[in-house]
């Protein structure tokens, strides 16, 4: 892992390969009561791609990924994941789909009453229905090693720092080998060094497990490190799209305000 003073280069553009679309969203609308949160959201996520969604708080960034995983139903529009319409799925189909999607919550959402090991065993025994103790141990240790927290295997979540909780949360989602990762503000509340480590980890894991990701954030350093493409959201819609370098030169005032933050 890079030290705090080392400069991390922005993500290199991925080599040209067959771009399979894993998430296709078209004209998604979502309201809560009278407030329309998503006005007209359209995007495609390609296999192996990292999309970063930037935007102020309360603009509907998290609502978008909650719709992708079926936690919320869009009011209108088309939302397909792996070519299947999420809005028309039965509970069983949704369960099958969720096994292919990892969701990292803001606080890690670790199960408080379980140790780190039990947290990681939970999806293996309940979702993948694994029974072989050796296989379970191997997977748990392997994924914890990948996030650099093998030492914390028998600790309770209350003994972990914010960054460690996010890493364990990440390990818990990765353990079922998801094809898509949805990150809900993965670096919020962390110090700059840990934020950078988490951002690097997201890239490393993406390369290792060939995962497509949507990263919701307002941390520009995280966006710079992880994004293949950035979508900027404002008032329920996307106002700009492009790579970090492209958007850095944008004329749009809102977009510029993100890139001109004091570091």
């Amino acid at each position: 892992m890079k030290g705090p003073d080392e400069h991390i280069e922005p993500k290199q553009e991925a080599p040209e390969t067959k771009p399979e679309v894993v998430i296709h969203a078209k004209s998604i609308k979502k309201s809560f009561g009278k407030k329309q949160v998503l006005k007209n959201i359209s995007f495609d996520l390609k296999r192996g791609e990292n999309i970063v969604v930037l935007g102020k708080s309360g603009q509907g960034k998290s609502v978008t990924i909650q719709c992708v995983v079926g936690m919320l139903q869009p009011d209108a529009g088309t939302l397909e994941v792996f070519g299947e319409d999420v809005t028309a799925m039965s509970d069983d189909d949704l369960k099958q789909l969720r096994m292919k999607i990892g969701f990292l919550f803001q606080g890690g959402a670790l199960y408080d009453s379980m140790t780190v090991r039990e947290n990681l065993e939970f999806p293996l025994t309940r979702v993948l229905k694994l029974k072989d103790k050796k296989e379970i141990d191997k997977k748990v240790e392997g994924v914890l090693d990948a996030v650099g927290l093998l030492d914390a295997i028998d600790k309770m979540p209350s003994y972990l720092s914010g960054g460690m909780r996010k890493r364990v949360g990440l390990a818990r989602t990765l353990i079922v080998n998801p094809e898509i990762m949805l990150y809900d503000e993965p670096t919020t509340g962390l110090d700059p060094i840990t934020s950078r480590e988490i951002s690097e980890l997201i890239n490393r894991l993406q390369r290792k497990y060939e995962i497509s990701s949507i990263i919701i954030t307002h941390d520009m350093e995280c966006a710079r490190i992880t994004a293949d493409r950035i979508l900027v959201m404002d008032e329920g819609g996307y106002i700009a799209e492009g790579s970090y370098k492209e958007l850095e030169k944008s004329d749009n005032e809102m977009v510029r305000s993100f890139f001109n933050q004091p570091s």
Partner: protein
Amino acid sequence: MDAQQELSGWRKWMESIGDYVLFFSRFFRNIFAGGFEWSEFVRQCYEIGYRSMMLVGITSFIMGMVLILQLRPSLISLGAESMLPKTLSVALVREIGPVITAIICAGKIASSIGAELGSMKVTEQIDAMEVSGANPVQYLVVTRILATSFMIPLLAIIGDAIGLLGGFLALNLTDSISFSLYFNKCIASLDFTDLLPAVVKTVLFGFAVGFVGCYKGYHSNKGTESVGIAANSAVVTASLWIFIIDAIAVQITSLLFYK
């Protein structure tokens, strides 16, 4: 404006009834959905049963003592002092034991389930289970409701026995009665029609405690304040349900057994 507010109040009330029914159907479907969480069920039985035993025991013991001390002067004035063991055992087994145990459990268990699930909801742990493809209702709700339905009757039976022991000690403060004579009198005065309705009633009390605790926790809003509200609301609602169930159960029992 008043009519509109009243209408919105009714609508909320109807919606909450709908939510209760949906939650019950989710619970019921998941009992038979396969993959029952035995280890979590046993853990909950331990948490709910064993950890409440001391509190139920002490309260029942005091209740048994107090009842004897309160009943004694009245029964002496009626010349029916020998009826004290019988009166105590019938009162304890039929009514006071089950209700006191259930109310204690509403305070201790419903609030703890409400707070635990509420805090899991606030910290997105339930959402995390759901989006991982696991079944939070089966893991969190089914196990807790079945554990309370199973353990609260057991606690009530243990509480009844300890209450009778308290009564024996209170009786011996003023009179002298042998242990075997006292318990023979207590047990001889009880029959099937005293025991069965009491046990059935406590199963329903246990169900109410677990169900209300899980419902309130599972449906709590975001924010730490909601955890306290969920816990508080679980105790109040579960206590209310215990008295409603008790009133209905007494009517049914009277119709069936004490015509």
